[in-house]
C-alpha cells in the first residue's frame, strides 16, 4: 500500500471540491503556512456533475435587489426548514464569489455596457441569476479546474475511488483510496479532510443526474456516525426529457418559456401560481417562475386528471419557447436546442418540448455546522453532499452553484486553519483501516460467484425509491420502500464481483457505489416515513398529513447508521432566528407576503 502525507485531503473534484482546494491554498498562502493539498476524484475533475448545471448562479446584483429579499426567497422556498444564520451568511457572500469567478475568467453572459447579465429564476423575487448561456455549470467547472492548475500545492489524484475515511478517537486522520487504473490502495494521511462528493440522484430510476452521482461521500461519513440530515427531501426538477431524464434548464422559463398541458392550457394557474402572466412577459414568482417542488407537484396532479400528453411511453407536458424567436433562443439557450434535437428529435425553435419531472437534487446530506464541519473533528463537507442547512425542504434553482462556491471556499479555509494546528496521526492507525478495506475488496472479488446480482439489486433500489418516495408519497408506499432497502442491504452481503481484474474494474466500482446507495436510501426512506406532514418536496397523500405541521415537524430529521441493524432517526431544532415561519405562497396569493 502506498502511503502519502497531506495537510488537507479533498474528496471530490467538482465545483465544491475545486473551490475548496483553491480556498485552502489561498488561505495557507496568506498565513505563510505552506500546505500540501490532495484532490481526489473518482473521475477527472472536469467530468464531475457540476458540468451539467445549466441555468445559473444566484447573487444579489442589481441596485434594487436586497440581501433581505434573497434571504426571504430562500427561507420560504425551503418551507422554513433552513438554518437561517447559514442563509444569511450565504446571501452576503454570494456576490463576491461570483465576482471572483469572473476574475478567474468565467465567461459570464454580458449586457451591452460590459456588465454581467442576470436572468430570472423560479422562486426568486427578482432577476439575480448570473449565467453563461445555458452551460453555466460547465463554464464554472472548467474555470475552476483550469484555475486550480496555477497552484502547485494542489496535487490531483484523478480516478481514485475513496473507499473509506480513517477516523481515530473522533477525529479524521486520512482516507483510504483505490487507484482505479491499477487496483492498488493508497493511504493518504491528512490533518483535515473535506468531502465534496455530490448528491445521490442515482438512487432513483428516472433522474437528470450523471452516472457518478451515487452518494458515496454521504455513505462514508454516515458509516462513521455523522448524521445524514433531511434526506427525505429530494428535488424533482419539473423539466426533464422523456426517456432519458436529461435536464432542460429552468432558464427556459426564466427567459419566458411556458408550460402547457395536452390541451394547450397553462395549467399552473390552477395550482396557486396564477393568474396567468402574458406571453413573453414572465413575472417573478408567478406561473412558470414558481418553485420546482410546486411545479413538479402540479405535473403529478395534471397526470392524475388525465391532462398530460404522451411521448413514447412517457406522460408529458409541454415547454413552449417558440414565441421567444429563433435568434433569442439560440443566444440564450443553445445547449437546450442541441439536447432536444439530439435526444428526442425536437427543435425547440419550431415545436414545444415534451418534458416531465425527474429527480434532480438531494436537499439533505452530511450534517455540518455553519462552518462546514461535521461531528467528526477535522472532517468537513460542502456542496450537494452536505447539509449545511441552506435548502431546507426545497432548493431554489441557481442557489446550488453559488452554494458550492460560498461553502466550498469556507470549507477550504476552515480545513486549512484546522490543519495548521493539527499533527498527523500515527500511520499505523491508517494501515489497520487500510487492511480492513483490502480484505473487503478481496471478499467482493474472490471469484466465488455471486449469489446475488448487483444489477438486480440496483434495479430494485431505484424502482422502490421511485414508487415509494416520489413526488407524492403515502405511508404504505414509504413503508414498503424502507422494507425493501433493509432487505436489499442484507442481500448485498451475497453480492460478488464477476470481474476479478485489478485494472479499471468498473464492475467493482458499481458494486461499491450500490452499497453506498443502499445505505443512504434507507436513511432517505426512514426520514420520509417518519415525517408525518407535507413540506416542500415531501408531500404526503395520507389523511391528516397533507399540510405543513410546524408544531411537530419544524425540525430537521437526522438519521444515524447502525451497522447491519436498522438506522435510527432523531429530530433537531431549526434555526429560525430571523424569520418566523409563515405561509408559503406564490402568484397573487403571495403578493402581500414578506417573501
Amino acid at each position, binding site marked *: 500500500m502506498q502511503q502519502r502525507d497531506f495537510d488537507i485531503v479533498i474528496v471530490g473534484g467538482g465545483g465544491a471540491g475545486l473551490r475548496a482546494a483553491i480556498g485552502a491554498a489561498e488561505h495557507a498562502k496568506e498565513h505563510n503556512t505552506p500546505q500540501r493539498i490532495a484532490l481526489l476524484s473518482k473521475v477527472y475533475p472536469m467530468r464531475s456533475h457540476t*458540468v*451539467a448545471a445549466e441555468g445559473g448562479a444566484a447573487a444579489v446584483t442589481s441596485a434594487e435587489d436586497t440581501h433581505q429579499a434573497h434571504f426571504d426567497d430562500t427561507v420560504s422556498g425551503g418551507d422554513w426548514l433552513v438554518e437561517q444564520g447559514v442563509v444569511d451568511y450565504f446571501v452576503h457572500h454570494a456576490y463576491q464569489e461570483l465576482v471572483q469567478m469572473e476574475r478567474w475568467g468565467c465567461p459570464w453572459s454580458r449586457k451591452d455596457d460590459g456588465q454581467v447579465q442576470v436572468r430570472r429564476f423560479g422562486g426568486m423575487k427578482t432577476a439575480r441569476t448570473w449565467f453563461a448561456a445555458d452551460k453555466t455549470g460547465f463554464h464554472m467547472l472548467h474555470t475552476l479546474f483550469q484555475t486550480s492548475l496555477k497552484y502547485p500545492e494542489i496535487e490531483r489524484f484523478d480516478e481514485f475511488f475513496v473507499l473509506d475515511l480513517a477516523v481515530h478517537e473522533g477525529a479524521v486522520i486520512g482516507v483510504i483510496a483505490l487507484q482505479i487504473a491499477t487496483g492498488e490502495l493508497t493511504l493518504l494521511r491528512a490533518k483535515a479532510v473535506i468531502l465534496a462528493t455530490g448528491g445521490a440522484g442515482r438512487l432513483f430510476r428516472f433522474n437528470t443526474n450523471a452516472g457518478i452521482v451515487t452518494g458515496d461521500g454521504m455513505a462514508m461519513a454516515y458509516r462513521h456516525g455523522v448524521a445524514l440530515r433531511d434526506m427525505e427531501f429530494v428535488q424533482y426538477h419539473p423539466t426533464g426529457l422523456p426517456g432519458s431524464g436529461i435536464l432542460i434548464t429552468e432558464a427556459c422559463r426564466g427567459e419566458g418559456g411556458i408550460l402547457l398541458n395536452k390541451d394547450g392550457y397553462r395549467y399552473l394557474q390552477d395550482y396557486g401560481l396564477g393568474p396567468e402572466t402574458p406571453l413573453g412577459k414572465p413575472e417573478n414568482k408567478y406561473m412558470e417562475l414558481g418553485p420546482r417542488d410546486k411545479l413538479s407537484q402540479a405535473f403529478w396532479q395534471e397526470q392524475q386528471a388525465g391532462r398530460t400528453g404522451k411521448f413514447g411511453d412517457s406522460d408529458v407536458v409541454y415547454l413552449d419557447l417558440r414565441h421567444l424567436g429563433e435568434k433569442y433562443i439560440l443566444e440564450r439557450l443553445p445547449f437546450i436546442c442541441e439536447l432536444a434535437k439530439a435526444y428526442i428529435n425536437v427543435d425547440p425553435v419550431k415545436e414545444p418540448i415534451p418534458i416531465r419531472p425527474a429527480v434532480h437534487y438531494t436537499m439533505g446530506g452530511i450534517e455540518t455546522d455553519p462552518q462546514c464541519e461535521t461531528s467528526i473533528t477535522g472532517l468537513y463537507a460542502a456542496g450537494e453532499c452536505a447539509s449545511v442547512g441552506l435548502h431546507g425542504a426545497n432548493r431554489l434553482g441557481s442557489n446550488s452553484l453559488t452554494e458550492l462556491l460560498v461553502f466550498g471556499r469556507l470549507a477550504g479555509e476552515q480545513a486549512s486553519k484546522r490543519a495548521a494546528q493539527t499533527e498527523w496521526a500515527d500511520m499505523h492507525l491508517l494501515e489497520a483501516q487500510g487492511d480492513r478495506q483490502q480484505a473487503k475488496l478481496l471478499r467482493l472479488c474472490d471469484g466465488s460467484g455471486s449469489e446475488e446480482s448487483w444489477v438486480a439489486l440496483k434495479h430494485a433500489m431505484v424502482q422502490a425509491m421511485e414508487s415509494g418516495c416520489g413526488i407524492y408519497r403515502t405511508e404504505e408506499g414509504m413503508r414498503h420502500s424502507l422494507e425493501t432497502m433493509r432487505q436489499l442491504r442484507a442481500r448485498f452481503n451475497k453480492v460478488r464481483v464477476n470481474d476479478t481484474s485489478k485494472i479499471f474494474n468498473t464492475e467493482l466500482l458499481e458494486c461499491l457505489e450500490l452499497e453506498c446507495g443502499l445505505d443512504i436510501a434507507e436513511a432517505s426512506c426512514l426520514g420520509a416515513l417518519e415525517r408525518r406532514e407535507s413540506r416542500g418536496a415531501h408531500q404526503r397523500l395520507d389523511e391528516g398529513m397533507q399540510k405543513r405541521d410546524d408544531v411537530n415537524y419544524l425540525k430537521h430529521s437526522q438519521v444515524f447508521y447502525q451497522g447491519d441493524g436498522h438506522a435510527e432517526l432523531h429530530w433537531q431544532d431549526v434555526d429560525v432566528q430571523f424569520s418566523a415561519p409563515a405561509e408559503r405562497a406564490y402568484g397573487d396569493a403571495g403578493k402581500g407576503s414578506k417573501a
Partner: protein
Amino acid sequence: MSTDQITTKQITTKHISVKRYLPDSSAEPYWQAYDLPVDDSTSLLDALNHIKEELDSTLSYRWSCRMAICGSCGVMVNGIPKLGCKTFLRDYEGEIRIEPLSHFPVQRDLVVDMEIFLEHLAAVKPYLIDDNPVKPYDPQAPETYQQSPEQLARYKQFANCINCGLCYSACPQFGLNPEFLGPAALTLAHRYNLDSRDHGKKQRMAELNRHDGVWSCTFVGFCSKVCPKHVDPAAAVNQGKVEAAKHTLIALFKG
C-alpha cells in the same frame, strides 16, 4: 438506465463488435461481438450499459453525464472518434465496430490513458493571467472586469471545449508525435489569448511557438470535423499560428 430506456417503439437486434483488451489475462486485444435489442432512441452508451448490466459485466468503459457535456465517453465507432452518448445506433447499418480512442495508450477495453492530454492542457497556462490588474480583486469591494458581448464573442466558441479528446484521435500529427500539444490544448491557449481580460499571451507564446506547439499542425482539419461541440479547433490552431508568427517577428525587430 439503459435497460429502462429500451422499452419504447420497435425493438430490433443490432450486432456490435467491441475491441477488448484485458492486460492481466491476455497480452493481445481481441474482438468480442454482442447482439443487442435497440430502438430508435438507443445511443451507443445505452448499448454499452446494456452489455455491462445484462450480457457481460467485465466490459470497461468511461461514461458519466450521458448528455454530451462531461466528455468521458469518447470511443472510435467504425474508425471515427465519437461520443458514445451522442451516437445513435439507428444511424448505422450492418456491423458496428467499437474501439478505444486512437493515439492514446489503452489501459483496458475502451479505457485509454488520458494523462498526456491533461499534461498538454496544463502546459499552455489555461487560466486568466493578469499580473498587474488595474483593480485587484477585493472580496470586501468585489468588482468585475468589463467585457462587452462583442469581446465575449471573440473567444466564447473556443471556451466550449469539453476535453473529450476526440480531436486528438482525429489528429494524424498527434498520432505520430504525442508531444504535440494538440488541438484542444492549443485551442484553450487561444481562448485565453483572445480574452479581453487576459494579459498572459506572452507567457503562453513560448509554449505555443515551439516545434511541438502550433507548428506541428499540418492543417488536416479532421479535428474540427469530429468535434462534438463545434469548437473548431483547426481555426483556433491556425489563428494561433498567425499570432505565433507575429510574436516571432516582433521579437526579431526588438532584437
